Each structure stands twice: as C-alpha cells, then as structure tokens.
C-alpha cells in the first residue's frame, strides 16, 4: 500500500486567486466511505471494508479536509488500514488487546455505515421537503395583547413616582477588587539584573527554576520581556524548548 503523508493544511496552488471552491465536500468520514462504496456499486452489507482502505486514503490525500474534522477522518482511515493489514498478514488474527473499545472491528464499522446510511437517506428526504410544503401557525397579533387601561391616570401619580425616585439612595459603589500582590515585574527585573550581574548573561530557565509559584514564573517572563523592550537585554533561543539566553547590553551590563 502506498501511504502518502496526509497534508495537515489545505495546499493552495501558487496561482490560486484568493480561494478555491470545493464541490465534493463530505459531511463526515462515514459519508466519504459510503460514497466510495456506492460509487463503485458495491453493497455495503457485503463489501470487505478492508478493500476500501486504499481508495479512502487516496481520497483523503488528494482532498484535504478542514483541520477541525481531520481527526475524525483519520480515525476511520486508521481503522481501514488496520483491517487491511490483518487481511494481508497470513495466519491467525492477533488476539484483541484486552478487548478494548478502540479495537476496530469490521462488523462494528459496517453496522455504523448501515446506521449512518439510513439517517443520511432520511436527511436527504427531509431536505427535499425543507420549506416545500410548510405549515403556518397563527402568529400572535397586537389584538392578542392585553389592552392598556383606558382611564386617564391622575397627574398626582407622576409626582408621587418622582418622590419615590428621589428617596432611592445612590447605589453603594462596589469595593475595589483586591488582588494579592506577591511579586511585581520590578522585583523580577531586579532579580534578572542580579542574575546577569556576573557574566552579563543568564539562562532564563535557571531563574525560573528558583521561582516559588506559577505567578512568579509568569512575572519573571514578563520582566524579561520588559528588559528587552527597554533595550537593556537581548534574548536568544537556538532551538525549540532549548535554553533561553538573556544577555545584558550597553551600560546595563555595567550594573
């Protein structure tokens, strides 16, 4: 089997102008698998699903799906590939690993396809009726609303209402939010300067290792960024997750 890497991001040809319309969009992995079976005029009840692995993977390779749905499409691809690998390998099938639910099972997948097909067909039939023969209900009209009292109101009511309004005390302002200030950026800037004092540079992770709390770690990183902003230090990281080297520059080095 020729397994091409599945592109994570949809590939856009350099000549593409803006966006590309994709017409044969499948609503899910079962939709795609069922389409592949039906387009070959095979019977979903009898077709060995392992035989669909190549077609499914080929289609997935050439028609990238939305990143949000990729995992669901790949999950079915993985099941098909495992089913196929079992058919290809001679001898007894390996015993199920403790009968876990993740163990793909051809009957289970077939049952899901049959179930999905029925609901897909029902959805198509319903879609054909969508708004074609609607029913309308009576909408409530204004006359359904209770009528307002017709007697004129005494003007004295208005004066009374104003009095009551004046009597309502001003709302008490809510107390200011109190946040415990355990560590400040200024403190951590000082700590970083101290750490750099000797050789003019320090590995940030060493400073972070000495931190007491998550807040302190966060503030230390912010302090580092502040030093960079003030052009008192430069930061360098050669590889992903590698050591972050903070180096003092200019007169800051002297301190």
């Amino acid at each position, binding site marked *: 089997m020729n397994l091409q890497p599945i592109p994570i991001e949809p590939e856009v040809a350099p000549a593409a102008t803006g966006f590309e319309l994709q017409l044969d969009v499948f609503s899910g992995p079962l939709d795609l698998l069922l389409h592949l079976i039906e387009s070959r005029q095979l019977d979903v009840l009898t077709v060995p699903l392992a035989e669909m692995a190549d077609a499914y993977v080929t289609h997935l390779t050439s028609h990238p799906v939305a990143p949000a749905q990729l995992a669901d499409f790949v999950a079915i691809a993985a099941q098909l590939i495992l089913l196929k690998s079992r058919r290809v390998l001679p001898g007894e099938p390996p015993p199920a690993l403790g009968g876990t639910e993740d163990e793909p099972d051809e009957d289970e997948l077939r049952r899901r396809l049959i179930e*999905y097909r029925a*609901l897909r067909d029902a*959805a198509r039939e319903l879609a054909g*009726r969508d708004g074609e023969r609607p029913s309308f*209900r*009576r909408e409530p009209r204004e006359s359904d609303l209770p009528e307002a009292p017709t007697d004129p109101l005494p003007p004295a009511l208005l004066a009374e209402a104003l009095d009551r309004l004046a009597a309502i005390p001003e709302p008490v302002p809510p107390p200011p939010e109190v946040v415990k200030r355990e560590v400040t950026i200024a403190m951590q800037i000082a700590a970083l300067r101290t750490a750099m004092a000797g050789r003019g540079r320090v590995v940030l992770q060493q400073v972070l290792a000495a931190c007491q709390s998550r807040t302190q770690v966060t503030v230390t990183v912010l302090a580092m960024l502040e030093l960079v902003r003030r052009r008192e230090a430069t930061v360098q990281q050669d590889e992903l997750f590698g050591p972050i080297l903070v180096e003092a520059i200019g007169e800051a080095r002297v301190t």
Partner: protein
Amino acid sequence: MTRPDDNGAFLEALLFIAERPLSTAEIADLAGVPTVQAEASLAALGEDLDEDGRGLRLQHLDDAWQLVTAPEVGARLAAYAAREEARLSTAAMEALAVVAYRQPCTRSEVERVRGVDSDYVIRSLLHRRLIVETGRRDTPGRPILFGTTFTFLERFGLTSLEDLPPLSSEAAAATALATMAEQGDAGDGG
C-alpha cells in the same frame, strides 16, 4: 364526516384563537371534559381535517396541540406568510435527522452516528429553534438531551413525529442494535 361528540367544533374554534400550542390538560379543562375524552376528540378532529382535505391541520407534539395551515397549500401561502429561511447544510440536515429519529438524544449520540464532531451544527439547529433542550440524561456528566420543535414540524410540513418518513429496514435493525448497545453501556461522553 363523523364526530364522536359535540366537542369537535369547540376544540377547532379554541385552537383557532389560541396564539400558542395548548396542552391536552388545558384543552380538557376549557372543554370541561376528562383528559382522555379530550384526547380522543382531538385525534378525531385531526383525522377529520386530514381526510376532508381542509385548509388546516392539527399538529401534535409531546402533549401539545396547535392548528396550522395544511402543507398542501403551504407553497401558495408563502407568498403571504413568507419566511425566508436559509437552507440547511448537509451536515445540519444529518444532525437534525438524527435528533428527529432518535429523540431525545445527546450531542455525542449525533456525533457517533455521523462519525464527526457536531457541536457547531447542533448549536445552529438550536439557534434556528428546530431543536430544543428537553432535559438531561441521568448518566455521568448529565448530558443535555435534544428534541425537535413545532418549528421543525411546521418547516417540514409534518403533523406529528409519526409523519416522519420511515427509516429503511436495515436501519431499523441497526437502530435496535444501537439501542441494545446503549442500554448495555449507559455511559455518555456528552
């Protein structure tokens, strides 16, 4: 046309002036008859409207009833009562079908049948009032249960859920299997 009692005319008139669906209990109370009798009269009224090819139909959902226009004349009425409804995507139709046929059901049941994440489509169906939350399943996580609405019946011209096109027979078998599997394993990720 036959009527089991004189309540038919009253019920028809009552449902005509009602601006919201009425429950069987409310209707029985207003008609001054036992609930069982009101239910029989309502069923008879619904059949009469249907068989006589009248311009109105009786819609029935859960325990509520409402008088609506007949689907046969719906297309022509749209010129007057037009509701511009955006068409539903294939994904939304699939999710709606699962809820309609399996209700009450959870989001994870919709996702299991469709084989793909359905959070967005469920929310769009809720927003269009085609489905509503009908409660919570008594399983770990207490997942939300969804069911279809009168808006769903109106949009698709159905008088009740029994009006839904039947699923194919294999589907019925698969559905039975799924139900058995569900009962065996009540857990739900919802």
